């Protein structure tokens, strides 16, 4: 961990966190550790949460829905002024990638803890971002858009190379998509895709892109200061996903050797440098089975999974964000950054994996954070709290650190078993099955891994012994049942309840 920076000369002495839940807690922790004042906005639904309890000042905001309150930039700016905040940290989600809000913060004379509005805009538009990255000479997946020049479309599609994917321009939901592995059938497949697009969407225009089989999701953390210095803080692999959302993230990626790691990390730093990027960001790549990788998108904010990077580098990324926003130079070169051991983050959700990962709700009647070495628990939920349908159903992030991947996985398995959360159905048992799966242990995963292995989500049948133990615990804890048993005279009890 770097020494605590001297904040006395910083342009802000008070920070408003425009977020909720675990990320508000996470940001407040660093803000307060640095001796700054930490304020938070909150909707009435979050009145009893940890972030509100921790904050030096908490200001209630309102909205048609709880989510709408956290998206109301004008109200949040007014709250910042009311509590005398000199800066706003947006966390992730909500207003974190909203260029208009970023501009409004600056116009109000406050510091936005994040990149410039121009950088948010550039990377927020997928097509613009892709073109920018391609112009810089960085790898993007080969593609061909029919609209660019219909006369040469088939020839351009051919040069994309196989395997390739034909998609209707107007499409969505996988309809009309065709995978081509042999260029001999390309023209015929294009005609078929065109007629399908016409049938499904009334629009036969197409585009073609390189199809990555069993892709992995690998992303790189970057940091840039206001003085033009950019470093990468290594990669995170986030291939284990359900419903297109990450659920387990780790670093280092088991898919990379030293040379590939350097190449992908330096590519990310190069992209950030070419954008003059300021503050913390993440460059995401799609990574193919033969080691090829292509730019996917850049997230111009702190990521949910940033603790994985903190676990292996010892950096506090929120502290770095605050220092950068205060105008401080990074103060270290790329060589100064090293990693130690292996980090894994497991996202604990209120959801039912056996029913298609559908969200659940309920009270948190009992919560025991797992004890042990190398564990970190990031959560905004407390015992006695409630998981409602109003927000994202993520309850906590469990981050484990080990000397190597094997030890990290063993710690994850143990910590998941030791996590007690009663009252609301969660994915904890599922995560425990996942980290024990041979393919996960071998590091052999891709973004379709959970879809290809649905048995991991299915609940195994209980053994007869477990069923009896559960029934015993339930019977002894159910008042009317236990009282009735205790009221039976000893004579009957001596005879027993069953007679031949």
């Amino acid at each position: 961990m770097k020494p605590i920076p001297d904040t006395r000369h910083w342009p802000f002495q008070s920070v408003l966190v425009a977020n909720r839940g675990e990320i508000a807690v996470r940001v407040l922790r660093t803000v307060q550790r640095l001796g700054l004042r930490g304020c938070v906005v909150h909707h009435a639904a979050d009145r009893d949460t940890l972030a509100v309890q921790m904050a030096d000042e908490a200001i209630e905001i309102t909205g048609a829905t709880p989510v709408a309150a956290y998206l109301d930039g004008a109200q949040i700016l007014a709250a910042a002024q009311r509590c005398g905040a000199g800066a706003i940290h947006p966390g992730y989600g909500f207003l974190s990638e909203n260029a208009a809000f970023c501009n409004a913060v600056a116009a109000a004379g406050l510091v936005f803890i994040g990149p410039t509005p121009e950088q948010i805009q550039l990377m927020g538009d997928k097509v613009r971002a892709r073109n920018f990255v391609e112009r810089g000479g960085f790898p993007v997946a080969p593609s061909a858009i029919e609209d660019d020049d219909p006369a040469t479309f088939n020839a351009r599609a051919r040069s994309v190379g196989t395997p390739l994917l034909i998609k209707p321009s107007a499409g969505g939901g996988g309809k009309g998509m065709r995978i081509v592995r042999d260029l001999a059938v390309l023209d015929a497949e294009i005609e078929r895709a065109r007629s399908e697009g016409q049938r499904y969407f009334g629009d036969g225009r197409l585009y073609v892109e390189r199809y990555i089989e069993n892709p992995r999701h690998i992303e790189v953390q970057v940091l840039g200061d206001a003085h033009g210095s950019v470093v990468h803080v290594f990669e995170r692999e986030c291939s284990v996903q359900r419903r297109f959302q990450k659920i387990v993230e780790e670093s280092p990626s088991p898919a990379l050797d030293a040379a590939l790691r350097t190449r992908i990390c330096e590519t990310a730093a190069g992209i950030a440098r070419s954008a003059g990027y300021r503050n913390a960001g993440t460059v995401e790549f799609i990574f193919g089975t033969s080691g090829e990788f292509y730019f996917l998108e850049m997230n111009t904010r702190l990521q949910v999974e940033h603790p994985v990077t903190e676990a292996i580098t010892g950096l506090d990324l929120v502290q770095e964000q605050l220092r950068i926003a205060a105008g401080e130079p990074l103060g270290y070169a790329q060589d100064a950054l090293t990693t130690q051991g292996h980090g894994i983050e497991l996202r604990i959700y209120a959801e039912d994996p056996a029913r298609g990962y559908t969200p659940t709700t309920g009270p948190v009647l009992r919560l025991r954070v797992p004890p042990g070495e190398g564990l970190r628990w990031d959560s905004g939920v407390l015992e006695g709290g409630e998981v409602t349908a109003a927000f994202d159903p993520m309850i906590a992030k469990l981050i484990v650190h080990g000397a190597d991947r094997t030890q990290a996985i063993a710690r994850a398995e143990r910590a998941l078993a030791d996590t007690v959360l009663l009252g609301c159905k969660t994915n904890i048992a599922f995560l425990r099955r996942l980290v024990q799966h041979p393919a996960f242990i071998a590091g052999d995963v891709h973004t379709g891994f959970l879809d290809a292995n649905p048995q991991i989500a299915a609940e195994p049948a209980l053994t007869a012994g477990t069923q009896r133990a559960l029934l015993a615990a339930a019977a002894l804890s159910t008042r009317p049942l236990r009282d009735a048993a205790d009221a039976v005279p000893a004579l009957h009890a001596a005879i027993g309840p069953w007679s031949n």
Partner: protein
Amino acid sequence: MTTTLIATRQHHFRLGEDEQAIALVRTADGHLLHTADGASAVSVERDAQGREWLRIDGRRHEVFIATRGDEVFVHLDGEAHALRYQHPLQRLAASGAGSAEDSVRAPMPGSLVSLPVAVGDAVQRGQVLLVMESMKMETTITAPRDGVVHSVHYAVGQSFDRDALLLELESNA
């Protein structure tokens, strides 16, 4: 050999998809749990550190137990489980014919996106009754049988928890 229950009533718990019958009996030195598989001496005790221990069949397990109404949540051997005590009268009512098919409940928490039917409409089995949204995914809920819409409990835009009663069909009885 047939067994008959005397003196002590049978009770039922829902565990997963199944309903389990048990009886609990007080003995001189604790309790006996009877299930279809036989009888076991059982106890739950709290030690000086506040940890709870379940003893059954000569084995000791650390447990965490929480209750809420008829629900019992048990963390046992590294995993959480939920059981629900089935009240005798409710079991009796639930055994009445066809009642479950009259009500349409939410399969997951979410909000109502559209409601193409109204009270009094005749609907056919499989016809769309409503569309709900949960975590940016839309789910279509269809009529479980032919019938007439008796009541609708939510308006478009309103949100609800899992198992909330969304809509009822007129009883066939």
